[in-house]
């Protein structure tokens, strides 16, 4: 498990394109979720007044999103599922934007329905999926594994759409689907759960041919439980659910394509079209039907006809484009609205509030329902333009004063910490990335005044489309070389140190779409060669030393997807988008072979097996279908979310060498498909930062020489001893099996308890430990190489980015003074990268999305309102002797400053880990407790504490803390509690940072802050309040420990019974406390402490 990275997004002035392909509103009507052609999901905040504002962009898919659906009972877990064109499926937590589960299946889904039947089903329910495959697939909502499928006995075909019918009348859930060929099929759902779980084939109960193609939607009228609405692209029909007889058929007029529909009330339906119009019809019983007697003697059938009541349409605007994806949300509960919503390819969202009783005008003509709200990502950017500046705006502004340059390509050189940006006007700007980021983010301090050094290279006349720094790929090449290609197919070789233009290649082949370099093993005339892929699908090979173009391969009909090198025979193998392969002889420049189909595939695959081809350099061309897979195999040492397909992540092609080591700070240029708009992400690796900042390397066994190391060792030992105690207790009590499971990780850790590092790793669980060991071996310690001042600067920038500036003016002042960090210019877009593929970025103006955010805090870098509450809670749990490292007591100011920073970062790192950990580690260690839990028949919170303490001790490695363990435990408990409440990592980190800084500055401020007696008094007041809960808290913890071990020691039945009731009681309490916590987050201020006490007291009673 890689630790997550903290990210800061530096958006440009233009929003990234977001062509909406799927849209849904969550059940609580708080969030709109959209999926895009580019592969991202966007979360939009929906206020009580139906105002929309974009909140967060989620990266995780590498292809166009095809559908979105609920993935859980939303009131319990706010999870949604998204499916992409290439078979990827992701489950997301909508509240914190994290990807919970991800899987890639060989199926492309076009619709997903969540189904859960609480009393017949264990687990989290099913996702019923249909798409480009036969019949209906059943996928487990939790694991995303295929459970089984619903089979058709007749005419199996792709399914276009489906709906779940839950009929009160017959107490049976059914699945209704319509196939591509227009066949309506019905499966029993609730009664076939058992057979499905036993993997028996379930065939359809009924089927009927509907005689229309391209079915878009099928909906059941839950009001009458009688009508069935089926919308086809060219007509819509109403059927009788009882016998599937056709009641009404309405054909589309003036070439409109219907896209969907919904039953909004009894006999009232809503139909929408692909071009964004919608119509509300009243279905009227035709009086005529009584007089018509069916000729064939069937039962008399009434007929119905539609009457148009209302219509809606989108505002005409320029970027409007088809198709629209629309949906309707029907909530009968009071605070909710009936909402019709639509998303466009242009990225615009439009909402209509549908009145409860839609009526036509007095004269009977249809009434037009006005648009309630409309919004785009760009609106967010325009409204909050201070936030949305690109990283080099500062410099370009300096340069010519007017107009900012649009960055069209960029490249980050980690070894030099240089950021190279190619602009639309042909200039190339080279700057120190950290300085650029500072200048962009921080308020004018002394640093920004004297302009940070930057270079401007002028040589291109057209916008720069691609950049390459060859030294980053192969250390053998000249460190000063840099290549740039432009729209005019001109490639320039630069010396970045002297700013000299070394050579200019003219290719005359359209825009240079990408620049690649041959692998180290492949050399021609003693040199590696450069490969340019051009806009007219040609490939040019350049020899840098000789300043010559070796080969220009121009025969390709389709865009180049893949380049391979055959070093023995000097072949260049070019794979194209149409799956054909061209083999070029480099020396002579002749086309050796051209193959298509199966043979082409074999050639490309053979190259992989034969080891002759050393590297695969897939090309970041327009569609990046295969890219991610190839990439991952070729470059396992990437930092951060590099392979982010669907986006043209430039650096991802280039990091292939093993010598690449993780760095605390990295800049990731991101570029999206179908547009030249790019932006940058600053990535902070907290773990790495902490590692670098520690005064002594961790591997130094002779730790007594350093203060910190000694501290660590001591703490580690003490925790080990402690654990053995508790362990023995439980060991005697539990059955041998569970005891062993429990003991395993801990005994292992005991064996090596005196070596702090090993200790930490062992505790982490075997799997993780192995990974870490490997990674430690592979990575040469970068610590000494990196400039110390650079590291400290990075740390300061990181703290600046995270601190909630503006919450407390005095605190800001103290921070600037004592930590020597600078204030932010304004709220920034924080982000969070969970792993290489999944990250989420806040959008400009996200801070105004939080409905709980009161006016005072606008323009404050506060992640959410919740942060303050969390921070207060954290402070309340902090022990009395505030966690200031002892090193601070000496008076040397600069030392104190850096120590404080280290201390703060340590804290943040810990929180980051704790909140992040649950998925993998908690399961590993948690599984050892599970036996025990089953034994107890109830989940006891005490176990969590045990769990956490073992985590904690391992995580704490390398930290200097002087808390008493009980306090640590309570903090742990608190933080792990946050985790369960799906507090975002960033939220947690910011809260802890705020609390720690407050504590810290309070103690520091005693000397200089006499001028602010008021704030001091406040603080004191706060302290008083906290005394009470704190005391009780520690007591309660002890009690819990006792209770936890007591029933285990004596597994006699009466006592066990007792324990059961106890724990049941406890669980109630816990539930309650959860509820409290929820309420707390709603109601700020004073009652917070009371509820905190309330949470503690009942625990004591038991």
């Amino acid at each position, binding site marked *: 498990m890689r630790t997550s990275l903290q990210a800061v997004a530096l958006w440009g002035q233009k929003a990234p394109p977001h*062509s909406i392909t799927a849209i849904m509103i969550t059940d609580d009507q708080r969030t709109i979720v959209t999926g895009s*052609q580019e592969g991202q999901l966007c979360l939009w905040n929906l206020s009580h007044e139906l105002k929309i504002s974009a909140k967060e962009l989620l990266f995780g898919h590498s292809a166009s999103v095809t559908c979105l659906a609920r993935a859980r009972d939303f009131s319990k877990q706010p999870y949604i599922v998204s499916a992409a*064109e290439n078979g990827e499926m992701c489950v997301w937590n909508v509240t914190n934007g994290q990807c919970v589960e991800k899987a890639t299946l060989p199926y492309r889904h076009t619709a997903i329905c969540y189904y859960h039947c609480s009393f017949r089903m264990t687990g989290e329910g099913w996702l019923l999926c249909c798409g*480009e*495959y*036969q019949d209906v697939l059943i996928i487990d909502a939790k694991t995303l594994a295929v459970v089984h499928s619903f089979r058709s006995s007749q005419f*199996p*075909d*792709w399914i276009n759409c489906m709906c779940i019918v839950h009929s009160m009348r017959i107490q049976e859930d059914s699945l209704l689907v319509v196939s*591509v*060929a*227009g066949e309506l099929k019905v499966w029993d759902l609730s009664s076939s759960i058992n057979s499905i779980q036993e993997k028996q084939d379930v065939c359809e109960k009924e089927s009927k*041919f509907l*005689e229309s*193609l*391209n079915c878009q939607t099928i909906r059941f009228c839950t009001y009458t439980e009688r009508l069935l609405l089926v919308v086809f*692209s060219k007509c819509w029909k109403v059927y009788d659910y009882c016998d599937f007889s056709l009641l009404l058929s309405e054909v589309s007029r003036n*070439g409109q*394509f219907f896209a969907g529909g919904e039953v909004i009330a009894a006999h009232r339906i809503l139909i929408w079209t*692909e071009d964004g119009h919608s119509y509300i019809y009243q279905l009227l019983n035709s009086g005529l039907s009584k007089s018509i007697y069916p000729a064939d003697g069937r039962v008399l059938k009434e007929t119905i006809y539609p009457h148009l009541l209302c219509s809606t349409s989108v505002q005409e605007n*320029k*970027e*409007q*484009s*088809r*198709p629209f994806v629309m949906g309707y949300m029907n909530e009968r509960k009071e605070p909710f609205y009936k909402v019709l919503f639509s998303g466009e*390819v242009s990225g615009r969202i439009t909402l209509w509030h549908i009145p409860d009783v839609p009526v036509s005008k007095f004269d009977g003509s249809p009434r037009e329902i006005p648009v309630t709200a409309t919004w785009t990502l760009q609106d967010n950017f325009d409204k909050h333009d201070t936030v949305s500046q690109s990283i080099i705006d500062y410099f370009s502004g300096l340069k010519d004063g007017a107009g900012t340059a649009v960055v069209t390509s960029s490249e980050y050189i980690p070894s030099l910490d240089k950021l190279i940006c190619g602009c639309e006007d042909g200039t190339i700007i080279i700057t120190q990335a950290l300085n650029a980021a500072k200048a962009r983010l921080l308020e004018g301090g002394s640093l920004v005044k004297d302009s940070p050094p930057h270079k401007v290279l002028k040589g291109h*006349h*057209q*916008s720069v489309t691609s950049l390459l720094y060859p030294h980053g790929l192969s250390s053998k090449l000249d460190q000063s070389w840099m290549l740039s290609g432009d*729209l*005019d*197919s001109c490639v320039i070789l630069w010396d970045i140190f002297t700013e000299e233009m070394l050579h200019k290649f003219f290719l*005359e082949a*359209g*825009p240079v779409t990408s620049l690649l370099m041959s692998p180290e093993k492949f050399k021609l005339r003693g040199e590696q060669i450069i490969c340019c892929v051009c*806009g*007219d*699908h040609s490939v040019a090979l350049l020899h840098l030393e000789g300043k010559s173009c070796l080969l220009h391969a121009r025969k390709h*009909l*389709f*865009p180049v997807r893949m380049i391979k090198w055959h070093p023995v025979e000097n072949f260049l193998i070019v794979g194209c*988008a*149409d*799956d054909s392969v061209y083999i070029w002889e480099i020396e002579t420049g002749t086309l050796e072979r051209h193959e298509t*189909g*199966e043979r082409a*595939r074999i050639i490309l695959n053979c190259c992989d097996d034969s080891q002759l081809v050393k590297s695969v350099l897939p090309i970041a061309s*327009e*569609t990046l279908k295969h890219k991610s897979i190839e990439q991952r195999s070729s470059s396992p040492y990437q930092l951060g979310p590099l392979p982010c397909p669907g986006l043209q992540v430039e650096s991802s092609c280039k990091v292939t060498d093993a010598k690449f080591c993780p760095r605390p700070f990295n800049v990731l240029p991101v570029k999206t498909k*179908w*547009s*030249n708009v790019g932006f940058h992400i600053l990535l902070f690796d907290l773990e790495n930062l902490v590692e670098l900042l520690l005064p002594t390397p961790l591997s130094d066994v002779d730790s007594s020489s350093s203060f910190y190391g000694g501290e660590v060792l001591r703490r580690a030992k003490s925790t080990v001893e402690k654990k053995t105690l508790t362990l023995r207790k439980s060991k005697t009590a539990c059955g041998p099996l569970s005891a062993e499971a429990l003991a395993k990780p801990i005994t292992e850790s005991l064996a090596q308890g005196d070596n702090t590092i090993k200790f930490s790793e062992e505790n982490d669980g075997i799997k993780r430990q192995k990974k870490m060991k490997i990674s430690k071996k592979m990575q040469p310690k970068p610590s000494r190489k990196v400039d110390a001042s650079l590291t400290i600067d990075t740390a300061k920038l990181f703290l600046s980015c995270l601190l909630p500036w503006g919450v407390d003016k005095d605190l800001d002042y103290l921070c600037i003074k004592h930590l020597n960090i600078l204030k932010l210019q304004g709220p920034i877009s924080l982000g969070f990268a969970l792993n290489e593929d999944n990250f989420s970025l806040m959008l400009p103006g996200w801070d105004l999305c939080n409905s709980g955010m009161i006016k005072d805090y606008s323009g404050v870098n506060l992640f959410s309102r919740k942060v303050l509450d969390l921070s207060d809670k954290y402070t309340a749990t902090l022990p009395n002797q505030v966690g200031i490292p002892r090193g601070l007591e000496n008076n040397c100011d600069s030392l104190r400053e850096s120590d404080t920073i280290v201390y703060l970062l340590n804290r943040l790192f810990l929180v980051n880990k704790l909140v992040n950990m649950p998925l993998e580690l908690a399961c590993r260690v948690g599984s050892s407790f599970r036996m025990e839990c089953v034994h107890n028949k109830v989940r006891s919170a005490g176990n969590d504490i045990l769990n956490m303490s073992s985590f904690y001790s391992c995580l704490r490695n390398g930290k200097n803390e002087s808390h008493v363990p009980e306090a640590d435990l309570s903090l742990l408990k608190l933080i792990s509690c946050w985790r369960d409440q799906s507090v975002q990592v960033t939220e947690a980190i910011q809260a802890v940072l705020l609390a720690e800084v407050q504590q810290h500055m309070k103690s520091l401020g005693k000397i200089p802050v006499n001028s602010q007696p008021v704030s001091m008094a406040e603080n004191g007041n706060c302290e008083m309040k906290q005394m009470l809960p704190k005391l009780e808290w520690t007591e309660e913890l002890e009690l819990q420990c006792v209770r936890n071990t007591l029933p285990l020691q004596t597994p006699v039945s009466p006592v066990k019974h007792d324990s059961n009731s106890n724990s049941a009681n406890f669980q109630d309490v816990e539930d309650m406390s959860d509820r409290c916590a929820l309420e707390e987050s709603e109601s700020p201020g004073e009652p917070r402490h009371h509820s905190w006490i309330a949470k503690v007291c009942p625990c004591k009673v038991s």
Partner: protein
Amino acid sequence: MATVMATTAAERAVLEEEFRWLLHDEVHAVLKQLQDILKEASLRFTLPGSGTEGPAKQENFILGSCGTDQVKGVLTLQGDALSQADVNLKMPRNNQLLHFAFREDKQWKLQQIQDARNHVSQAIYLLTSRDQSYQFKTGAEVLKLMDAVMLQLTRARNRLTTPATLTLPEIAASGLTRMFAPALPSDLLVNVYINLNKLCLTVYQLHALQPNSTKNFRPAGGAVLHSPGAMLDPLTAHSEWGSQRLEVSHVHKVECVIPWLNDALVYFTVSLQLCQQLKDKISVFSSYWSYRPF
């Protein structure tokens, strides 16, 4: 490149005019052409339900191989389903002639044809939703449409050119072996698939290995055609094989060209090239991607 030199306002105006023509006229012309080609292709697949002409017509294909005449098959294709099959097999050892046919009541769906057909109709649907009356406003819009259409066409083509790779146990477990009227002898396996424009029938002859045979087990991996020597894992195979180990002793492959599949593949290739050419035309104006005529 033309756009690059456009420094003067006059040239720029000309280019804009050209781009406008491209978006308004040329794109629709190409889309119309594409539609015609793809409709022609989909006719080949005889989409059931598209008209009221009743069940699709039956076509007989005689499968044989140029080398030997050990296996002969007559397969009847009805749309995307095999409605009848007659397979004659001459056993190599004793020259005994075996004959089996499909059960009367059963049809075997050729998934590859169905998928290809559905992909084509998806592509057609994408094209028809942007008819003459629709005005493209940006080049990116056209590119996206072309990407979507090309994705469907590539998938349609790949479904035909890349048969599903099945392991022997998968073939054994598939319903095809249970389709025959005198049930297939337990030492025979049959697989039917499409490869490019050909309908292929593969018959595997198996022989049982001694339980304590010293021969190293070489599991039959995922492949369309398993060469002799591949073995059937008794654990994963169908239950009727019991715990016996089976080895492929002979493989007979016969095939027959389906003329209309050949046509369809040609149509796919042509329309893919048309799509790419349109994309290239748009890309020439790539510096105007964000440019909107009104």
